């Protein structure tokens, strides 16, 4: 019996060694809600990002939260409306928005420079935001999963460097974003670098 256990341990060790070779770029790109589907206003942005990007900045909208596809679709529209019509941006500020429904909403996408983190960081980072306020509350695990899957997809597509670095919004700007609870979570991500 113990011989069997030892053999099992060996097999697992071997797989672990092989597993290290299996990198993130084997992840398939998961579903992203396209702009058309969430009825986004047309983008007026033209500035492109120089890819692959080295940095990802994680923020929160600090606004209303949503946890169903219907409510998150509405929330994405709300955020875009505020940015494009009230603040006068060329489009919603973020490259991607994450809903607590577990879905990723396409913002400016991988190729267009965002307006999420100031003049220094916008040209060098992909900005992803979690829709909601995460100072006192953590995002639902499915939102975290969606974000991680999105970033793996970025590497697979060559939009992110394989050794990309995740930063919290508060690490690169003077802000409370992405909220204490979400900040605690991203600090545990393998690509997080303060």
């Amino acid at each position, binding site marked *: 019996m*113990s*011989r069997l256990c*030892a053999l099992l*341990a*060996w097999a*697992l*060790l*071997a797989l*672990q*060694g092989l597993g*290290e070779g299996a990198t993130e770029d084997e992840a398939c790109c998961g579903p992203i809600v396209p702009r058309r589907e969430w009825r986004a206003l047309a983008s007026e942005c033209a500035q492109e990002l120089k890819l692959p990007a080295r*940095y990802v900045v994680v923020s929160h909208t600090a606004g209303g939260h949503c946890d169903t596809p219907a409510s998150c679709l509405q929330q994405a529209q709300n955020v875009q409306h505020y940015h494009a019509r009230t603040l006068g941006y060329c489009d919603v500020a973020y490259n991607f928005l994450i809903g607590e429904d577990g879905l990723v909403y396409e913002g400016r996408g991988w190729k267009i420079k965002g307006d999420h983190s*100031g*003049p*220094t*960081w916008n040209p*060098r980072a992909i900005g992803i935001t979690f829709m909601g306020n995460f100072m006192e509350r953590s995002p639902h695990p499915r939102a975290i999963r969606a974000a991680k899957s999105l970033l793996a997809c970025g590497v697979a597509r060559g939009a992110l*460097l394989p*050794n990309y670095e995740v*930063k919290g919004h*508060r*690490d*690169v*700007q*003077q802000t409370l974003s992405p909220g204490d609870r979400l900040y605690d979570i991203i600090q545990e991500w*393998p690509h997080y*670098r*303060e």
Partner: protein
Amino acid sequence: MRKARLWGLLWTSFILELQGAPRSEEIKYTRTEGQSLSESCPFNVMKYFSIRKAWQRLGDRGEIQTLAITDRVSGQSSKVHVDRCSLEDIPTEGILHVHMTDLRVEDSGLYQCVIYQPPKAPVLLHHPIRLVVTKDPAQDLAQRSTLPPVTTKARVKTRTNPSPVTQLPASESTAGLGVNPTHGTDVLSMEPRISVISTVTIVVCGILSKSLVFTFLLIATQRSFGR
């Protein structure tokens, strides 16, 4: 007792494999004499807003030479110029911009951005920067008979550096080489061969180290079960 030790060994190797700590990979830049280098080193806005930063050069034997330090009046944007280096600290953006102009071959080496807080040890920001400055090919053509062995050797040395190196896109490293096509092709054809060698070396070393661990543990297990 012996079995417990063996299990301990097995689990230790499990954990060691899992750790794979993020290495501080070098970022490499290649320039010709007279060109400049610009790099931006991020720092944490909350932690290092008011703390001084520095640009340092690391010698071959690990000795540190501080080339420039940001102003003492911290917490505000500041720019310092020392010699051919400039350092711009923008605390509100969490970024330190470094600029080195009029590069010379002697500037080739390893550099780093750090948080400067003596007597505490400096904290590395971003990644170490490996700079390679080569002679201007137009000048080199004139001095071809005496200089080529030195130039090529220098390039080979840096490229077979065992530590992981992120290479920038071709446009960065081939800038300025377009002037003399022959020289350019010589250098360019060496690059793919050398990067293949270093990749193969790294892969082989990885496989060898893992097989060593397995072999050792296999022998240990055999001995135990043999009894």
